[in-house]
């Protein structure tokens, strides 16, 4: 332990503690802008670039950034001398002098770290004027990059490169022209971007935002010729409340259903129902591959990898094109839902698929991209028409004057609204594989599970593993969340070192609860942890907790699909993957080659 003084308060801290953390211990909150520490996910970003957190350290010539300066014994630190306050304000004014002042109409207004910081520091005038950096706006299927608003905190770069190892973004150019951009400053849709949206999730300004589909949804709802149905993903119910001032981890499933109904959706369904369906298909595929593998079939690829996460799918299509036969061919629950809705359900209510609008509420931005994938539709009519994020839904609810917290709890419609606890846990890391195990175990062993909760598969560690005893047959399970962690498991598979039979992969930290479309965590990983716990709480409360026991699932196989992996299933519920590594980035330019 070492002794230091912060703002005349003597405290003791552990060796290696930064001034920022030490100050927090002393109850002093030094403002930060570029710094980000998601403690529970082990992500720390401290480039020391914004210089907002500077403090005065006695004996040092220059001010020191609190985020990166380590405490030394006897250090005397002052966090609010006139020198510090002047420097902090001046730096803030500099940052604002290179930032558009269109806050009133900015997507991030009211939820913007830069805006709150300007308020907190009491900025009333920007003393500097001059050139502002401007860039071409880039709109991709999921993400809008408006880099005029970038303040070079570089959080997105860290998420994209260090955490996700996607490498779509890098700092480019230098000095005043420096900005974070894809290669050749082309649009994201020309890059290896997976649309995981983690860059959006950490962006402190309006530089990175989602493509907003709320207006399309409003228009569809207003169109009398359309039947509009909605599905909502498991992770949404564990986070939406935050947008309305509820504590993180508050489950709002019933209010969510009420709100959607009030918004005017004709049927309010649940993606969870499709998650149960996914388990039937994916679980069966796992058992099938396993059986063939155990029978010595060398052509069968193991481990089987989950395929619910569209960012993960795009990731392996770009980065591991020679391994596209390993993931399960099962579509994601969003797309299974869409396919069933536009066939089975459309027939049922006698509506042409063209007049049936399927909207999904997702914690995710990659889901928007997934909707646009051509193979996930029929004759140019997508199986899911619009995917909006948790944040967009919150906005839609607010726009529609709905007092969310006062809403009564309601239930989903049927037949596509009934689900099990196994489906709910799809929303967090480890959940899909636990749901699959619950079903696969019983299908394989023909015995009832001795216990439903597989605590060995839960948690927030980046890579986890467990061996589950399938009545004498040990099944090795791997779990990774974060594409950087996924990469490690894939490298092992490639090198022939993997001992797993099945691996669950989610692109976002914590799984879908930490998705790029969720309410912003503002660097507080406790939020994600609380959502994680809420998901398991919901599971525990469900009367049915195994997918194969969902009566509406049984019913659809009886009425429509036949059995898992049937020809109809293949057609509607499974998909194919593409090698995207060869796609050359082509420069659009005025110059022409000779």
């Amino acid at each position, binding site marked *: 332990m070492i002794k230091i003084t912060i703002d005349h308060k003597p405290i003791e801290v552990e060796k290696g503690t930064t001034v920022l953390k030490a100050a927090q211990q002393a109850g002093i909150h030094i403002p930060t802008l570029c710094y980000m520490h998601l403690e529970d996910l082990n992500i720390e970003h*401290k*480039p*020391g*670039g*914004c*210089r907002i957190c*500077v403090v005065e350290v006695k004996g040092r010539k*220059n*001010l020191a*950034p609190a985020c*990166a*300066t*380590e405490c030394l014994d006897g250090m005397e630190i002052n966090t609010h001398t006139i*020198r510090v306050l*002047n*420097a902090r304000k*001046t*730096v803030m004014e*500099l*940052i604002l*002098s*290179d930032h558009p002042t269109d806050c009133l109409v900015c997507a991030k207004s009211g939820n913007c770290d830069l805006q709150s910081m300007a308020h907190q520091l009491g900025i009333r005038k920007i*003393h*500097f*004027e*001059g*050139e502002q950096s401007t860039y071409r706006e880039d709109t991709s299927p999921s993400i809008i990059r408006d880099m005029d608003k970038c*303040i*070079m905190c570089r959080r997105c770069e860290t998420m994209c490169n260090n955490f996700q190892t996607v490498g779509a973004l890098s*700092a480019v*150019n*230098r*000095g*005043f*022209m*420096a900005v974070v951009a894809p290669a050749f400053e082309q649009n994201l849709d020309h890059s290896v971007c997976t649309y995981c949206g983690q860059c959006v999730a950490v962006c402190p300004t309006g530089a990175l935002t989602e493509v907003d589909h709320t207006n399309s949804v409003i228009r569809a709802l207003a169109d009398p010729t359309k039947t509009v149905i909605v599905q909502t993903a498991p992770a949404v119910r564990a986070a939406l409340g935050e947008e309305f001032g509820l504590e993180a981890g508050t489950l709002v499933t019933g209010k969510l259903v009420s709100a959607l109904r009030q918004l005017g959706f004709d049927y309010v369904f649940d993606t969870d129902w499709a998650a149960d369906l996914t388990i039937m298909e994916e679980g069966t595929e796992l058992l099938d591959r396993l059986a063939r593998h155990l029978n010595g079939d060398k052509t069968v690829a193991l481990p089987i990898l989950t395929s619910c996460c569209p960012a993960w799918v795009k990731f392996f299509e770009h980065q591991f094109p020679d391994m596209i036969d390993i993931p399960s061919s099962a579509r994601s629950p969003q797309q299974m839902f869409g396919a069933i809705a536009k066939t089975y359900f459309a027939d049922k209510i006698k509506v042409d698929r063209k007049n049936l609008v399927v909207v999904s509420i997702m914690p995710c931005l990659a889901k928007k991209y997934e909707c646009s994938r051509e193979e996930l539709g029929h004759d140019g009519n997508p199986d899911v028409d619009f995917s909006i994020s948790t944040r967009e839904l919150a906005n839609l609810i607010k726009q529609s004057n709905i007092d969310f917290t006062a809403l009564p709890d309601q239930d989903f419609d049927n037949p596509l609204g009934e689900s099990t606890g196994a489906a709910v846990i799809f929303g967090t890391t480890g959940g899909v594989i636990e749901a699959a195990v619950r079903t696969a175990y019983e299908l394989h062993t023909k015995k009832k599970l001795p216990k439903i909760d597989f605590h060995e598969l839960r948690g927030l560690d980046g890579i986890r593993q467990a061996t589950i005893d399938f009545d004498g047959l040990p099944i090795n399970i791997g779990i990774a969340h974060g594409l950087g962690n996924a990469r490690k498991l894939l490298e092992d598979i490639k090198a022939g070192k993997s001992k797993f039979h099945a691996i669950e992969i989610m692109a976002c930290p914590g799984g879908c609860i930490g998705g790029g479309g969720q309410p912003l965590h503002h660097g507080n990983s406790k939020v994600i942890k609380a959502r994680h716990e809420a998901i398991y709480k919901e599971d525990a409360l469900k009367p049915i907790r195994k997918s194969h026991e969902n009566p509406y699932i049984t019913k659809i196989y009886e009425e429509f699909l036949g059995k898992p992996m049937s020809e109809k299933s293949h057609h509607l519920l499974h998909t194919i993957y593409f090698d995207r590594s060869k796609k050359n980035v082509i420069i659009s330019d005025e110059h022409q080659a000779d």
Partner: protein
Amino acid sequence: MMKYKMHVLVCGGTGCKSSDSDMIAHNLRTAIDQKGLTEEVQVVMSGCFGFCEKGPIVKILPDNTFYVHVTPSDTTEIVEEHLVKGRRVERLLYKDPQRDEIISDSKHMGFYKKQVRIALRNCGFIDPESINEAIARDAYQALGKVLKEMTPQQVAEEIKKSGLRGRGGAGFPTGLKWEIASKSPGPEKYVVCNADEGDPGAFMDRSILEGDPHSVLEAMAICGYCIGASNGLIYIRAEYPLAIERLKIAINQAREYGLLGKNIFGTDFSFDIELKYGAGAFVCGEETALIHSMEGQRGEPTFKPPFPAVAGYKMKPTNVNNVETYANIPVIIMNGAEWFASYGTEKSKGTKVFALAGKINNVGLIEVPMGTKLKDVIYDIGGGIKGNKKFKAVQIGGPSGGFLTEKHLETEIDYESLTAAGSMMGSGGMIVMDDSDCMVAMAKFYLDFTVEESCGKCSPCRIGNKRLNEILEKIAQGKGTIEDLELLRNLGNVIKDTSLCMLGGSSPNPVLSTLDHFYDEYLAHVKDHKCPAGQCKALMQYIILPENCVGCTACARNCPVNAITGERKKPHVIDQAICIKCGACVEKCKFNAVVVQ
């Protein structure tokens, strides 16, 4: 072995080479051959003599004759007159501009008289492509000495005792740096030579590498022994092809002699050196940025600690020094710390190389003991101000240094006194300005540079310097206000106080020091909308003096924007609102009627 009666040294530095010194050497050899003197006269392409203003330079020994501005066609005369007949070619001798007298012997030239050459000891003396000539000048003996007689700790002690401080800018004690690196645990360590000399107007490192590469190689090996490293890396600007070439030759020669490589001098110590190239980023002079660049990354600095001595290249303990610092090491080992410490001042020992440039008679590379007075450098060595104009200011330390004025001429040059005076040692650029140089424009010139070279990582440097520059531009346009001057000062201080690395930490110095020393000149721009030096275009006015104008219409006809009107044979007038200040009218007027105010 040949016993030459005379040696002819031809400067092979970049400056002289670009003025055809290769051809001069070639022609000399041919002419000498024709006269049958090949066995008597040796022609050597040496490193830089430092007196670049007068290049290309040819020096003849033993009589120390110093020929300046030599062209390839002068060579026949030099051979026939000087080498054959023993008569000096007078027209090629150096003429002292102040006393207007010819000085033939370089030892008597003011430029050399007050210099003490330690780091440059072999530059312009040996053939840098010959390891034999270097060995004849004791190269690698210091390495032998430390390997045989000294422990690594003793080496660090010796360097500490010598008082040598980093010559790249910050002036950190070299011995201490070595000691820290030597105490960092780990079998894998690195010795890095920073040869990414980026200061515009400073070229001492290049000159040393071109003129005496072995001194740097030897010093790096000594450092390797001291800190326990067996790998050396030289990070050199790709814009220095000659230095790169000579380093490659030197490294190969040293390897062939076994002076680099495995088991040097039959000991357990192995050391080898490879080159890494810079690619045009000034910020890579900062050691953490340099290390990232060597690792194939963008050259962005990172927060220290951890210092490179603890976690540097590939996160291994790394010692980074610049070229000039290393060049001092072998002589310190050979002659002892006391000898070195006998030069200089209390806190700044030894000598410092400066690149003298600007409005000064003797542009070139000089080496003086620390503590030499600024005026001695400018007037005695530099030969005073060019064209007998008035000295106005000297800017020391490269783009991040500050301006010193007449009242600082008595300043004794060392780290502390330069910093106290608002400037800094930097890498040793020294640019002299006369009264036709506008201080606002000069400050802006340096900021243009830092704005371009800022890496963009931290906000004060990325945006702050840009804003400083914009305010200066506003002032140069005559649109500044008094408040702008205060804004400049506050912003400058905040940038210095909050930037991530020393690039931003010092970039406002030119602005702040000119604000301190030339406030009146700023005021003139802001209040009177005048540029006293007559350099700021926007504040200049072209005016036709009616008493001189005969109405010939030449100016009006040549004005590209038709700003000049007037009847024939009557005085003309320039419409200031239209005038673009191109100066065409001045050129065309035969009657001195157009003047600039």
